[in-house]
């Protein structure tokens, strides 16, 4: 492959990558893949990729002018064209497979927890002060894991959003309200869940998003004490813009 063609293709691919990531950032879909806190880094990537593409275009223009001047043919060999093919892979996967955040179909391999091993910098001491209705699924799991005495939480009001999942460990009138927790990128995502108890649980659809309001109780599953919400209402809601929780 002539060097100049190679450079043009490189530039196009870099530009394509920049546009692809830019579109993901603009549509808010970047957080399907990475933790929010790394978005600025991706923005830097978007800009720098465009700068590199521009540099390559400029270099080609310069080379063309130069070869017009001294009629020197391209004597050097461009690197393997395979490099270009590989860079096409993320673009194709990103464009052809519709963006879909991790859901219950990832449980099979990614695991599914009712006890969170997460001990994040915001210690659970802070969680005491938050209003019980402000706590999300992960907060409740943390509280139940790191407090010796959970009796103080029983009877508190809760209001959590999550997607529905059914499991054999549960009764007919119970379901899991789950969220994925992503620390860095989707590769380390894992699901946390608390139990919902509702007489019409059977009418719920797997993977659908619900807002569960009710009173917190506890239930023992696989020798673990897990938070349970006795639902007063279960309301279908649209999938949140941030499908994951960021610890």
């Amino acid at each position, binding site marked *: 492959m002539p060097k100049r063609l190679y450079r043009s293709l490189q530039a196009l691919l870099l530009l394509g990558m920049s546009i692809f990531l830019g579109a993901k950032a603009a549509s808010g879909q970047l957080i399907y893949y990475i933790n929010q806190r790394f978005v600025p880094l991706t923005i830097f990537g978007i800009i720098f990729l465009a700068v590199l593409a521009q540099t390559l275009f400029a270099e080609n223009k310069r080379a063309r002018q130069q070869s017009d001047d001294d009629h020197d043919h391209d004597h050097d060999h461009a690197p393997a064209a395979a490099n270009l093919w590989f860079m096409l892979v993320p673009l194709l996967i990103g464009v052809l497979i519709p963006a879909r955040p991790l859901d219950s179909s990832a449980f099979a391999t990614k695991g599914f927890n009712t006890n969170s091993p997460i001990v994040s910098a915001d210690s659970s001491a802070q969680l005491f002060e938050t209003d019980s209705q402000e706590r999300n699924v992960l907060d409740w799991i943390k509280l139940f894991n790191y407090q010796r005495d959970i009796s103080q939480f029983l009877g508190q009001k809760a209001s959590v959003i999550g997607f529905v999942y059914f499991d054999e460990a549960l009764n007919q009138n119970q379901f899991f309200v789950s969220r994925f927790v992503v620390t860095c990128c989707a*590769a380390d995502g894992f699901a946390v869940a608390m139990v919902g108890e509702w007489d019409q649980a059977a009418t719920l659809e797997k993977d659908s998003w619900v807002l569960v309001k009710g009173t917190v109780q506890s239930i023992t599953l696989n020798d673990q004490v897990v938070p349970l919400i006795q639902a007063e209402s279960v309301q279908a809601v649209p999938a949140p813009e941030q499908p994951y929780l960021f610890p």
Partner: protein
Amino acid sequence: MQNTTSPRPLPRSVILFIAFGVLLAVVLSMVPIAFFTWLWDRLNVFATVFLGIFIEAAPYLLLGTLASGLVEVFVDQNQMSKWVSHRPVAAAVGGAFMGMVFPVCECGVVPLTRRLFNKGLPLSAGISFLLAAPVLNPIVVFSTASAFGWGNMLFWRMGISLVISIIVGLVFSIEKDPANILRPVLTLSHDHDHTLKANATLTEKFHHAFLVTADEFFEMGRYLIIGSMLAAGLQTFIPQSALLAIGSGPVLSVLVMLVLAIVLSICSTVDAFVALGFMGTFSFGSVLSFLVFGPMVDIKSVIMYLQVFRRRPVTYLVAIPFMMSLLAGALFNYFQP
């Protein structure tokens, strides 16, 4: 004229092709529809995990290749040999501490190290740098501290990584001929046509540095992509719980964390946050070994190593850190349960 209008018998290959197509359609129609939804679900998980790793790592790879491009333009060979000692011990220690200056992770460090070798960096210094830089740099110090606090974990992570990288550097200093270790550099020579003149302006210099950056981004990006696909594939089809279920006992739990470090392939700049998630289920020593070993060896970095080093040195680069991380983790588990 007649030839084109009269029907010709179909060539055998076309008949075979059609027959094969019909057969395939019959077989596929017998596969239950549930299989396809299962496959589609797997594919979706694969795509999300793959893009997750790639989008996370791409900016870091860009930074690494940019560093390499800048070194190519702004560092000349004479300076390099002045800075770095050629005595093995001094070179290995110097290389490891050099890691503190460059804020690169394990994706970015590979092209940068190769560039430094090209500029005449001694082998042992380069190896120590390669292993130390992804951990001993300001970004990683900060991210580890924000996950675990300024305490034991940070101290031991940095300390043990430093020791391992210096030891591996010394091991490599036994080999006197770099040609036995490094693969012949093919692509670095291709830009001889626009070698910079001594009096190049700053703009020209940056222009040249960016060209090098772009070339290396493509070259190394290829291996980042292969590695991310492997890691995503493993995560899509092998249950993580199976791995975690094995993990108890002072040695076995360290082994599990080491394998996890390889499989997850998380960037060293952010792996502390992920490791934090394992603190509940795993002991201090096991998580420490994850934090020490992960930045040195994982799927994508090994594939990138293979582009720079010959095969046998890569096995050393994987095996020695593996053994030493295992040893360190197990010692911690025994003495500080």
